């Protein structure tokens, strides 16, 4: 089995993402990267929690979490991102069945949902900035934008990454060269959702109370 072997659904291995040495290395290395990402986001969450609603004297109460956040928007964003996590599971289901068209389609749907999420986030940030709550407004605003913005940057990177995979492999079909690539991209997308679960809980829900 190597990168150029042509497979049929009957000959496709059960774990195509780990059937080559390179695939195995990618798999383990990517999980190690995700573990490091946990630590990155932990430092941003810790900073946010320490600086939440804090700022220079006379900051006023109009820019506190309670006054700023609107939960209906956050709820829609959460549902969109959670659904995109399921669509990438569907993509991996088709990948394991050696159904290339299914993989591409569901990855495409994942990208669309991710783009909707990112659009809503940009709308939200834009709204806050127009109210006067910009990045340099206070310690709270810097911590908020850095935490939520780093997550948004991950979403943007994921969108570019998965789009590039879909385009670059469009004529190649599934093989052991690209199966690990699709697999780790899906893992990355799930991880983005994992981080968002804590953002909507810790930042928005606990902030709105």
């Amino acid at each position, binding site marked *: *089995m*190597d*990168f150029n072997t042509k*497979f049929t*659904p*009957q*000959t496709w*291995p*059960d774990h195509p993402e780990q*059937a*080559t*040495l*390179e695939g195995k290395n990618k798999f*383990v290395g990517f*999980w190690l990267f*995700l*573990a*490091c*990402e*946990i*630590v990155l*986001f*932990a*430092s941003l*969450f*810790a900073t946010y*929690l*320490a*600086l939440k*609603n*804090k*700022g220079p*004297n*006379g900051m*006023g*109460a109009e820019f506190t979490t309670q006054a700023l956040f609107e*939960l209906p928007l956050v709820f829609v964003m*959460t*549902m969109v991102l*959670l659904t995109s*996590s*399921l669509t990438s*599971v*569907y993509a991996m*289901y088709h990948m*394991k*069945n050696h159904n290339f068209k299914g993989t591409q389609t569901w990855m495409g749907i994942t990208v669309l949902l991710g783009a909707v999420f990112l659009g809503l986030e940009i709308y939200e940030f834009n709204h806050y900035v127009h109210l006067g709550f910009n990045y340099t407004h206070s310690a709270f605003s810097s911590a908020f934008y850095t935490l939520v913005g780093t997550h948004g940057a991950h979403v943007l990177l994921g969108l570019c990454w998965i789009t590039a995979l879909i385009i670059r492999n469009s004529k190649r079909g599934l093989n052991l060269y690209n199966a690990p690539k699709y697999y780790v991209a899906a*893992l990355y997308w*799930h991880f983005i*959702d*994992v981080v968002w*679960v*804590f953002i*909507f*809980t*810790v930042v928005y*829900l*606990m902030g*709105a*109370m």
Partner: protein
Amino acid sequence: MAHHGEVVAKTATEFKYAREQRAAGMRMQVVTFALMIFLTLIAFLAVGAGFSFYFVAPVILLLAGVQVVLQLYYFMHMNEREMGLISFFMWSGILVAFITILCFVTIIWWHNAW
């Protein structure tokens, strides 16, 4: 690259079995997804209902924890065998995350006039 293992075609029975197993696994994933939606709804409703912060905060943090475990163990397949090294990476990361957050929320004060 990696010439270990030859290309082996599954017999008709093996192939049918593997496909059925994957289909069953996918149905399980959809159930997991429904559970995640349900947990999210409870979290938003609990905040909307206007209970005390000290009651709701631990509950929604617990719901978030459960949801993340579902995501890691089902969507990201950490429940499968041979994931020992990966579990070690992830739980080490979670431990460091926990200590970092604990430190920051317990040792930092900010004098604020308003």
